[in-house]
């Protein structure tokens, strides 16, 4: 995490879901791409984490549930960009991608075709993340479900046995399946 306090006021901060493998890979790529030859960075990154108050300290309007639901880019002026708009702004901020990022602002009678394509691309990427085993990304969308079944079936063919879940509305935590610590909060005798 980049936390240089002097830079946080002047640079955008990209929040990412550190529980999602796809998001971590993208965040790593952004982190590397944001570094300039002179050693500076054009963008900061921060995992969303588990503290709603810490997020609200970054921006009072920032809700941790919404931060996990869609990509957020916190702008230095206090505004926030979400979804495809955030992705476009990230491209504008990265030295290697800013050359084509201007196309996202191109408008025909108020319609921005390249931005619309980017929005669609973001939605598709966001929807297919569960195929890569991300439990934090939610259940697959209806159009992704057939692919999810194929991935699951292929997994069983190659010996991967999914954890049995007591409910379809339940996120298993492999690390939590075996208690590693003694009970810490018991009713006093």
């Amino acid at each position, binding site marked *: 995490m980049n936390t240089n306090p002097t830079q946080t006021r002047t640079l955008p901060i990209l929040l990412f879901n550190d529980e999602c493998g796809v998001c971590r890979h993208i965040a790593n790529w952004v982190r590397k791409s944001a570094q300039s030859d002179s050693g500076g960075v054009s963008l900061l990154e921060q995992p969303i984490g588990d503290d709603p108050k810490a997020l609200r300290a970054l921006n009072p309007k920032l809700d941790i549930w919404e931060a*996990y639901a869609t990509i957020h880019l916190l702008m230095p002026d206090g505004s926030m960009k979400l979804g495809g708009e955030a992705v476009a702004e990230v491209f504008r901020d990265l030295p290697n991608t800013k050359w084509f990022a201007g196309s996202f602002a191109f408008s025909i009678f108020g319609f921005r075709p390249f931005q619309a394509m980017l929005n669609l691309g973001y939605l598709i990427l966001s929807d297919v993340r569960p195929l890569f085993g991300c439990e934090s990304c939610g259940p697959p969308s209806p159009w992704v479900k057939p692919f999810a079944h194929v991935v699951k079936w292929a997994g069983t063919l190659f010996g991967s046995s999914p954890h049995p879940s007591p409910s379809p509305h*339940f996120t298993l935590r492999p690390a939590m399946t075996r*208690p590693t610590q003694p009970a810490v909060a018991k009713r006093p005798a």
Partner: protein
Amino acid sequence: MNDNSDNFEGSTDKIQDVTTDAFNAQVLNAQGPIAVEFMSYGCSHCREIEPVLQQVAARVESTEKICRVNIAVEPDLASSYEIQGTPTLIMFLNGKQVGRIDGPSPTLSSVMTAVTQPFQT
């Protein structure tokens, strides 16, 4: 501690955050019915159930308290209750566990039943 902050969809948070240090005082030594949601902010199913649980908490607030324990922050407390995943609801009556449900369906009726039925038997 309830931070009384704006939460889901701009409404006030009706669910009280409980830490390990406060668990004895706020749950185990407290009187009356209390439902504790073991959750994580990175859990998509917790995200789904959150607005429903807020509605339920608002409806039952005169008779029942609903709390949340963030298992990412309080892993030892989660382990002590053998939390296999999230969301898990555990119901306490006068400090005694009387019910538990793993991954309730995120509908108003099922969550309402989950957090009230154990206290009716």
